[in-house]
């Protein structure tokens, strides 16, 4: 990359990360005024991971995320209006209101879905990756999990199975410091999840999860390994969740000063400092704000999910 291209590239990353940030801040407001109901899990502070990864992923790749998955969906190109509508319980083109914030899918965008069972998306991503190998599509299955998921049996079953079956699976562990509401170090014996991958003979890398380019480079390497050598790969991305585990989380468990320190390292602040062009970043934020207002407006015109359809679509065959 030449130095002349750098600002445009960085501004594009900034715009995508800010889109996710502003979307979720809007979601917080919609929760407050009651236009969204139910438990909602935000990825504020972790935007560099999905944005960095998606910069190198292809349309043929399958992505599965967790219930903290708005950022992954947006980074994969899911339309914001549809996402707003899905979260608002409307007849969204995504899942017709059936998924909500924590369990929606958009396979047309290479997003096989969020998952609200911790770690359970890994076996499914393994299958998606396996299918791509059978289909000779030169594509991967990528699953994002939290560090807490590394203590789930299904994840370890899948790491081993992906290794022995030679499946192009990429696991991204977003280590945000907390297993839901408990500090990670209190619950995980391993000092680093990359060591768990090594135990299965799986190549891995530890990256700065607040740097989208670092994440992108890691995913590029992982993707090349997965496709070129038919081997799984694990990336641990160190980041920090700047909000609670869920929308009602009062975060009394946080030590004093922790959030202030984390805010100095968070991806948007850091990238803005790197870009060092306030006029340009201000313009990006203004543009995103206008776009979000328009998309929310569209979502508000989508009718509520139709109760007459509540029983429809359980089966392909007869509805019994």
């Amino acid at each position, binding site marked *: 990359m030449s130095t002349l291209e750098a600002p445009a590239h960085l501004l594009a990353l900034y715009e995508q990360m800010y889109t996710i940030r502003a979307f979720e801040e809007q979601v917080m407001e919609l929760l407050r005024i009651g236009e969204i109901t139910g438990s909602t899990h935000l990825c504020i502070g972790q935007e560099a991971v999905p944005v960095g990864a998606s910069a190198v992923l292809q349309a043929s790749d399958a992505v599965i995320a967790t219930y903290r998955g708005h950022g992954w969906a947006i980074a994969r190109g899911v339309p914001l209006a549809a996402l707003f509508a899905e979260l608002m319980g409307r007849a969204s083109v995504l899942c017709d209101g059936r998924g909500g914030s924590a369990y929606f899918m*958009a396979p047309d965008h290479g997003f096989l879905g969020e998952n609200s069972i911790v770690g359970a998306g890994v076996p499914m991503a393994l299958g998606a990756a396996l299918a791509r190998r059978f289909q000779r599509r030169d594509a991967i299955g990528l699953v994002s999990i939290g560090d807490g998921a590394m203590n789930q049996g299904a994840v370890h079953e899948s790491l*081993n199975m992906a290794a022995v079956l030679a499946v192009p699976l990429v696991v991204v562990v977003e280590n945000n410091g907390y297993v839901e509401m408990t500090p990670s170090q209190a619950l995980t014996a391993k000092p680093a999840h990359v060591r768990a991958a090594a135990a299965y003979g799986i190549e891995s890398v530890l990256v700065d999860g607040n740097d989208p380019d670092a994440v992108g480079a890691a995913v590029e390497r992982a993707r090349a390994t997965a496709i070129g050598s038919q081997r799984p790969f694990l990336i641990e991305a160190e980041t920090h969740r700047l909000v609670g585990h869920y929308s009602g989380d009062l975060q009394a468990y946080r030590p004093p000063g922790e959030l202030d320190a984390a805010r100095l390292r968070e991806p948007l602040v850091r990238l803005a400092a790197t870009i060092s062009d306030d006029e340009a970043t201000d313009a990006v934020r203004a543009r995103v704000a206008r776009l979000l207002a328009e998309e929310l407006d569209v979502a508000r015109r989508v009718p509520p999910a139709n109760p007459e359809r509540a029983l429809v679509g359980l089966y392909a*065959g007869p509805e019994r």
Partner: protein
Amino acid sequence: MSVVEISYIRAVNEALAWALARYPESIIFGEDVALPNGPFGATKGLRARFDERVFDTPISESAMVGTALGAAVSGLRPVVEIMYGDFLLVAMDQIVNQVANARYVSNGALVPRLTIRTQQGATPGSCAQHSQSLEALFAHIPGLRVGLASNAVDAYEMLRAAIASDDPVLIFESRRLYAQKAAVALDGPLEAVSGSRVVAEGGDVTVVSWGAAVSDVLTARTALDERGVHATVVDLRWLSPLDLNPVFDSVARTGRLAVVHEANTTGGFGGEIVARVVEEMGSQLTAAPVRIGARDCRMPAAPSLSAALLPTPDRIAAELMTLVAPTGAPAS
């Protein structure tokens, strides 16, 4: 179409071979299914014939079922073998929280076109973790299809229907029946995933059963015939979707209903059948319906102990006689 006299397990093998030949996107995997030819021989010869589309997996039931789901929604047509029905419990999250939700929650965007094959039931000496009949757990879950094959013909036809279906289907085979032979028509027209079947007719009592218990009911029925009591036997075949029309038709004539399953009585699917018949036509019943299942207990290994708990043909016959002639007098 050719008709061959083959065993139940061979019928399963023929259905799997049919699927691999018919659907290039189909794959078969499980524990010991490829190079060892399957723990019971269901996949015998398929690895040699279909190469990497038939493969062995680690003993990781959650990863196996999740892999089937991820592969299915990506365009493959997986058939995963779970060696014993008891091991489905290891994969319960994937089956219930993942597979059963996929189509509905995605509003049809994900198509969980997969089949889970397993076998279940008690055989002499089988331990408590290799002998349960667990179909009710899965029939309770909307989004899944559940079928139990009681003979070699159904083992072939129901498995083909399951694999052809766009819905996730659990097929419970019966290890006890694996050697039982029947004339099976190969490569005939495909059945749908649905339909119960009247396998014997009689005017005194309607007996609903499925899976391995059907053969026990038929044995009991022969004994009843000799005592002048004639039973209609309905093999339910599919618990989901549920086809009770032949049951309603028969109960309208007999006025008496018994449900027989090898699964535990309490919370068994027999209770659901009784409830539906009572809701639909309770006033036409001339006697209270009867559930005949395993006694509510853990399954011991010693054959003398398990026989004391299971619905044996003798016990089925005795309970049906009580239902038909509660005073002990012979039926008219």
